[in-house]
């Protein structure tokens, strides 16, 4: 590793292997990136879960204060996004578990699984927020 850092080698413009930008974007590439992004979003979003549980453990006044924040327009938009990220990451993860068994690798199937995950995650998010959340997505639209 020491010689790679020497001044002589640093000045050489080395050829780089083709990277993402030389490829036409494919749906499975996009899905791979979305899987990472939703994973990272869920990671930081766990703060919301910890905050909400802490509020419930603190007392009625603080719980109502936090509930009002989550119930606000911005709060609901964030929670809808969180719901979608969770479902998309979950369905995408099931796809990865299928691939771990060595199945589902032909190109048509990969495209179908990718689009299926996107459509299913959006539909399920809509279904949950329209039917299960009082004053949820339904109230946003109405």
């Amino acid at each position: 590793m020491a010689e790679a850092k020497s001044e002589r080698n640093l000045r050489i413009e080395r050829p780089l292997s083709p990277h993402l930008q030389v490829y036409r974007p494919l749906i499975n590439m996009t899905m791979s990136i979305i899987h990472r992004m939703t994973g990272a979003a869920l990671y930081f979003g766990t703060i919301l879960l910890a905050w909400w549980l802490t509020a419930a453990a603190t007392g009625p006044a603080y719980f109502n204060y936090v509930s009002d924040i989550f119930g606000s327009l911005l709060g609901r938009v964030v929670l809808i996004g969180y719901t979608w990220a969770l479902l998309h990451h979950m369905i995408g993860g099931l796809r990865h578990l299928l691939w771990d068994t060595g199945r589902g690798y032909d190109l048509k199937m990969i495209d179908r699984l990718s689009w299926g995950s996107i459509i299913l995650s959006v539909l399920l998010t809509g279904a949950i927020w329209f039917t299960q959340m009082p004053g949820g997505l339904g109230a946003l639209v109405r």
Partner: protein
Amino acid sequence: MKMRTPLKNVRHLGSAHEGADHFILQRLTAVANVVLGIFLVWLVAKLAGADYAAAKALLRNPLVALGLLLLILSGMIHMRLGMQTIIEDYIHGEGAKLAALALNTFFAILVGVASVFAILKLSFGA
């Protein structure tokens, strides 16, 4: 001359001192998270718009508390491993990488312990 002890050969772990643990633990927690994630969606939907007394009563239910504890345990392991992969892929400076990996572990433990404490306080507290 062979420098490896017989135990080293049996373990097959090499110089990284770990084998497929990361891969297997990520998948194992993924499977658990499918069930526990659906449980969380159910719980949040059930509690949406509920007043404090109703929320507290449901969160104190032993089965709900157990589900939440398991979700937090499995979720924190899973997300720490996932973020570790992201850090190792995108942060190349050795110092920055070590710092990010340490922060990653601290974050997962902090969020996890804070959540567990809240659940236990709800379950056992006055």
